[in-house]
């Protein structure tokens, strides 16, 4: 399974990338995309909304199920991916390119609590063996 090793991850299968300008970009992982199957609808948070870490803030809906997306870190929503409304399948095509939203006013130190590549890989393996 492809997991980029420059991102941070959560147990609930979100990825986070800290950008050079201090914002953080968030999406769902390839694994989450695979579990859900063909995406049909994405609901992103409103720009300007302040999120707490772990707060439900977006919904990804596939033909099989709707799943909540949780904010991996606290911050204020700076932008949402405009492509996903008309083309939710972009998440299926490349989960790491099709970001959901960007957060500003983030505390870079919060990322330290998230999973790195190896830790996330381990979680996927343990889920596999369940």
């Amino acid at each position, binding site marked *: 399974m492809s997991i980029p090793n420059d991102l941070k991850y959560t147990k609930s299968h979100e990825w986070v990338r800290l950008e050079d300008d201090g914002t953080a970009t968030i999406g769902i992982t390839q694994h989450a995309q695979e*579990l859900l199957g*063909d995406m*049909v*609808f994405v609901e992103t948070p409103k720009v300007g909304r302040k999120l707490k870490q772990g707060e439900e803030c977006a919904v990804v809906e596939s*033909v*099989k*199920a709707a799943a909540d997306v949780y904010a991996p870190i606290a911050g204020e929503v700076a932008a949402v991916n405009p492509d996903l409304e008309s083309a*939710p*399948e972009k998440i299926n095509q490349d989960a790491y390119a099709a970001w959901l939203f960007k957060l500003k006013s983030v505390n870079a130190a919060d990322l330290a609590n998230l999973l790195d590549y190896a830790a996330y890989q381990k979680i996927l393996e343990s889920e596999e063996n*369940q």
Partner: protein
Amino acid sequence: MLIFEHSRPGRRNYSQSPAAAEIVGIPQNLMRKVPPLLPEVSEMDAVRHYTRLSQKNFSIDTQFYPLGSCTMKYNPRACNSLAMLPQFLARHPRAPESTGQGFLACMYELQEILKDVTGMAGVCLTPMAGAQGELIGIAMIRAYHESRGDSARTEIIVPDAAHGTNPATAVMCGYKVVEIATDKEGDVDMEALKAAVGPQTAGLMLTNPSTLGVFEKNVAEMSKLVHEAGGLLYYDGANLNAILGKVKPGDMGFDVIHINLHKTFSTPHGGGGPGSAPVGVAPRLLPFMPVPVVGSDNGMYRWLTEKDIPQTIGRLSAHMGNAGVLLRAYVYVRLLGAEGMHRVAEFAALNANYLMAEMSKAGFEIAYPTRRASHEFIVTLKELKEKTGITAMNVAKRLLDKGYHAPTIYFPLLVPECMLIEPAETESRETLDAFVAAMKEIMEEAHNQPELVKNAPHTTPVRRLDDVKAARELDLTWKQV
């Protein structure tokens, strides 16, 4: 072809009848400017159109339907014919009680029988569907806490295996949902429950047997835990048919329950009829029951209303809910009697366990192999997908070619590539054996002719539908008006 495509201007179902007299005297301003968008077809065209559609349908009357009670069980014909007696059909819902004593007696007796079989103190028949039954149940829990001035209770606990309606109901009633995980055996994780229960707990919503097809072993302990914390217990009756007459939700400690009549009492559903979900309550929730319920004064039956139940949470439907469905359930329980209801549960469980054992022998992986099935069980096709790329969806579609409706797939979501199989109590051993044989054939095809399975169905009136496109480009009307 749609009925609208058969339409020809001026064609009527009385085309051969003498021309009708023109109606005069309707003020011009009340006349419509454009004719209504209705199909114009002859009676014969209409009959053929709908008969043809019904022939294309996969139905419980023609094929084995291991979707089970979720969608619809066999509807015994006697229930239908007795509920359609002209005296029932022609009864006006607002007719005086004195002229509807027969109907009211049936409803009263149905309430009494449901109380007896579930161990609850009161039953209200008016909820129009399972989701409404849930809404009422949680609304009553809320009314109960509020009547005690207990406003600190803000959370409803819901296991992650629950039907999606459970958390939705809790949110609709203004509660925060706290999700509890499932342990490896398929039970609610007791440690997680202990951690979640507290003075903020308004209640716990539980389906037992659960959606994983297993009986929650720790239900007594769960009930004690929640009650000791001051919360109430809600029973989602989705799987009551597995334990009907054997274990009563009231005895398990539940304070409020809903019963899906189509699941347990064989009423029509799933496009075949409206829903109905009677709600039962423990003594402490009696004051909050929705109205109307049917009461009896010295042998005369009457509606109990707001006057009789002043703290009622209110009315949920005009009149008596889906009266026709309730009548069918009434006939069903009277036909079965107490002994028959026991047999419903026994045969439902026997059929599920037999089928589970045969599927296991045939090489299918059972999701919870250490557990006895309730009335349904789960197979996971995870390994098949890894080895062959064939998914549960593909297998489900291929089953249609073999003459079987597909079971529920991809629910519960906890189990990857799952099939939730419920044979129901009405199937014979031969039918179950034939289903296993069909599943075995598909398993072999998945290895030897995977394309055959991937492109199934091949023999149905329509081939594989593009459900992704249908969901992305929702198109619900034949013509833009």
